[in-house]
């Protein structure tokens, strides 16, 4: 028996395409909701402008595309050898060549004019009502409200989707990978200037509904602005490859009314006053271990793992580590200042003295490590200069 390939016919091809289309449609209808296929609905004027531009350009290029390929498909249909068409022998026509050089130029100018206005508007970050510094860390975002209402508020925003959902041991929630412990909150109708920077590698901060995206570059401060025109919670993700957990550092912005914002600011101030950690107090070993475990879970677990075994060689084990079981000042200095050239960040800028003391105490007394000694915040404070 020899397999004979069927000859391809136009009708066979149509059937194949229909079958493929039907399969795709079946798959699409199988999904819980209709899959989003266009830019997210705008929540700022700039985003609305971008959507308008995109539609305008798509319309233009679709018309051009259909026009050009109408000629090609007509030639395919009418100028076939199989129907006995004889080839003409022209191969130049200066007039038409000048026309199809000049017309695209004119179309480009027509496109460029409105786009230029939007580019200029996007870049105008002057006179903001509120300024927030956003810092990219591997793999979370830090928010510092540096000017305007809410000045002084500062928090770190980390993915709150449980590991079990990511690894398929639990059903995935509605906001899978798009949920954080601390959301950025801004008031509606106020110009918010975001300063971006990063502590380790390049990240990129993006909120699609505001039409605002800016790379966060270590050692430099860049900026963007937005003015929200809708209240609600808007979600996005880091958009510059930043290492292992690039896919797991979402951005969530909650836009609220002016009154709600004022209330949120007051609440934040109260919370930060209440939990203000006293670096001069002395804590018991168990107290520190318990606090340290939480700090570890929020900051260290992605690399060093909950087992303390790490992922060698990129992310070394802490369990049985020479450094963790060695002199405490060496370990504290490493956590404070980080290790250049690796993903080990300088946590001195991210955590306070109590948190640092707690997490170091925890690692020295967890798994197989048995230091049996508490490290007090005052010791960390002394190491900072």
């Amino acid at each position, binding site marked *: 028996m020899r397999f004979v390939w069927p000859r391809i016919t136009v009708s066979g091809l149509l059937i194949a395409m229909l079958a493929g289309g039907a399969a795709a449609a079946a798959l699409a209808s199988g999904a819980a909701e209709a899959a*989003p296929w266009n830019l997210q609905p705008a929540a700022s004027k700039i985003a609305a402008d971008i959507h308008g531009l995109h539609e305008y350009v798509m319309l233009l*290029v679709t018309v051009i595309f259909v026009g050009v390929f109408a000629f090609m498909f007509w*030639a395919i249909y009418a*100028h076939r050898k199989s129907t006995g068409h004889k*080839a003409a022998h022209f191969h130049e026509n200066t007039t038409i060549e000048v026309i199809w050089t000049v017309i695209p130029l004119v179309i480009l100018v027509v496109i460029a004019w409105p*786009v230029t206005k939007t580019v200029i508007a996007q870049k105008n970050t002057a006179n903001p009502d509120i300024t927030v510094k956003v810092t990219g860390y591997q793999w979370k975002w830090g928010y510092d409200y540096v000017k305007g209402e809410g000045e002084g508020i500062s928090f770190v925003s980390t993915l709150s989707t449980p590991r079990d959902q990511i690894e398929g041991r639990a059903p995935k929630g509605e906001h*899978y990978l798009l949920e954080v412990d601390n959301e950025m909150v801004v008031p509606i109708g106020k110009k918010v200037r975001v300063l971006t920077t990063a502590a380790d*590698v390049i990240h990129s901060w993006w909120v699609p509904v505001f*039409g605002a995206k800016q790379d966060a570059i270590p050692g430099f401060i860049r900026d963007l602005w937005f003015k929200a025109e809708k209240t609600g919670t808007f979600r996005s993700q880091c958009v510059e490859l930043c290492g292992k957990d690039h896919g797991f550092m979402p951005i969530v912005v909650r836009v609220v009314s002016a009154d709600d914002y004022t209330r949120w600011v007051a609440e934040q101030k109260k919370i930060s006053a209440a939990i203000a950690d006293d670096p001069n107090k002395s804590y018991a070993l168990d107290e520190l271990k318990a606090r340290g475990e939480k700090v570890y879970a929020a900051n260290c677990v992605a690399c060093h793992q909950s087992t303390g075994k790490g992922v060698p060689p990129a992310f070394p084990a802490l369990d049985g580590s020479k450094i963790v079981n060695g002199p405490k000042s060496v370990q504290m200095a490493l956590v404070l200042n980080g290790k250049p050239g690796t993903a080990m960040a300088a946590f001195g800028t991210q955590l306070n003295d109590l948190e640092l003391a707690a997490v170091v105490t925890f690692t020295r007394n967890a798994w197989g490590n048995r230091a049996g000694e508490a490290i007090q915040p005052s010791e960390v404070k002394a190491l900072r200069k």
Partner: protein
Amino acid sequence: MSAVLDDHGHAHDHHGGYGGIMRWITTTNHKDIGTLYLWFSFVMFMVGGVMALVIRAELFEPGLQFVNPDFFNQMTTMHGLIMVFGAIMPAFVGFANWQIPMMIGAPDMAFARLNNWSFWILPFAASLLVLSFFMPGGAPGVGWTMYAPLTVQMGMGMDLTIFAVHLLGMSSIMGSINILTTILNMRAPGMTLMRMPMFVWTWLITAYLLVATMPVLAGAVTMTLADRHFGTSFFNAAGGGDPVLYQHIFWFFGHPEVYIIALPAFGVVSQVIPAFSRKPLFGYASMVSATTGIAILSFIVWAHHMYTVGMPVTGQLFFMYATALIAVPTGVKVFNWVATMWKGSLSFETPMLFAIGFLFLFTMGGFSGLVLSLAAVDIQLHDTYYVVAHFHYVMVAGALFAAFAGVYFWLPKWIGRMYDETLGQWHFWLTMIFFNVTFFVQHFAGLAGMPRRIPDYPLMFETWNKISSIGAFGFGLSQLLFLYIVLKAIRSGERAPQRPWEGADSIDWTMLPTPAPYHTFETPPLIK
């Protein structure tokens, strides 16, 4: 025709005395080296393809199923590097080796031994890339663009990759010098520049681009190496450097690189479309100037890859205008190809199908490129799947389709046998359909906000990713059919007639026997 007759008498005297594997290692014959380049690129195409399938398998549904995020990043990085430097570029150098001497009436490449070396560097470079997976920490997971300062965090695999890029660059530069010298000095009497086949023209311009930009890439990765090991701070702000400087240097190479890949593809298509339209190429002179125009513009548009790094408004606008301008010469080329088909006498053998597929899909990639060139709109699309879809329309539907067209078109000339036309058409339609299933939906995922280079994604992107993954596996499997078709043609294909394509009229078809003997044009032909 005297050159042809001479060949028959002496052909077997010049095999160099080696048989078996040593023939291939020591060969200085442009046809042997062309064959080596083409097989090498096919192997790399398979290796890079398997990596693409690992990526698509992981992305079939949300959650982490098959690979961890670190390995996923290694896959995206190596898929990109291997496809660009290992598959597409060597494939077109293979075409250049086979075709340029036969198309301009030269007996071989200008520097035959250099040619051997240019090729034999490649397997070592590829081995370094693959070996990086077995280093502590694995291959680099930094993306094919290798942005600083993430590169500083990588293990030894990064160093192997840097050395591999050095070797690949050396190979490309030597190959280009060879091509430039051959084209400028070894044309047969009467073969003036403006009589050269379009494929030769596009390679002449591509070779200039390579010589100008590959050293820039070598500089960028060398600075990365120095930042990693020698305490320099080119890309480290703490030491007075700037991470964005890396991007400027990389894309000064990277954007011309796009045309290094695209121009030879334009060249192949410019041979195939007239041949199957039985009509000369429309606007030959304007094709040459459009190609030159694209090449020159490609040097002043690099920062359109960097609209989100925070350039001043004048920077955004300059790079936007310059980039949009490329649409003009590219448009001229598309119009010329359509005008070549217009009122021709068309037939649709496999090379023509791939050329038409190229024309149709590459133009779509060009239009999504125009959308991306608009800085304001790019803010929404940068680093999303829209960009992934865009450059696969240009690289796969552009360069790869043209490479398939070239193989089917020239295979009879090279081996003297025909491929199976029915299977060839099957290969085209499967490739065409699965390509679009894979990549068209990625435009939607990108518009809706899916970032690129992520191993896991929010639930709203599931549908598009499922369709894309199904398409990718169909696309990958279809390429095994291509291998089968080529092997079948070599083993048992029908004998090719002297001129299998009646419309093909360059001198490789009109003045040389089919298959082309081992040595051709030992005495230069006279082109009238």
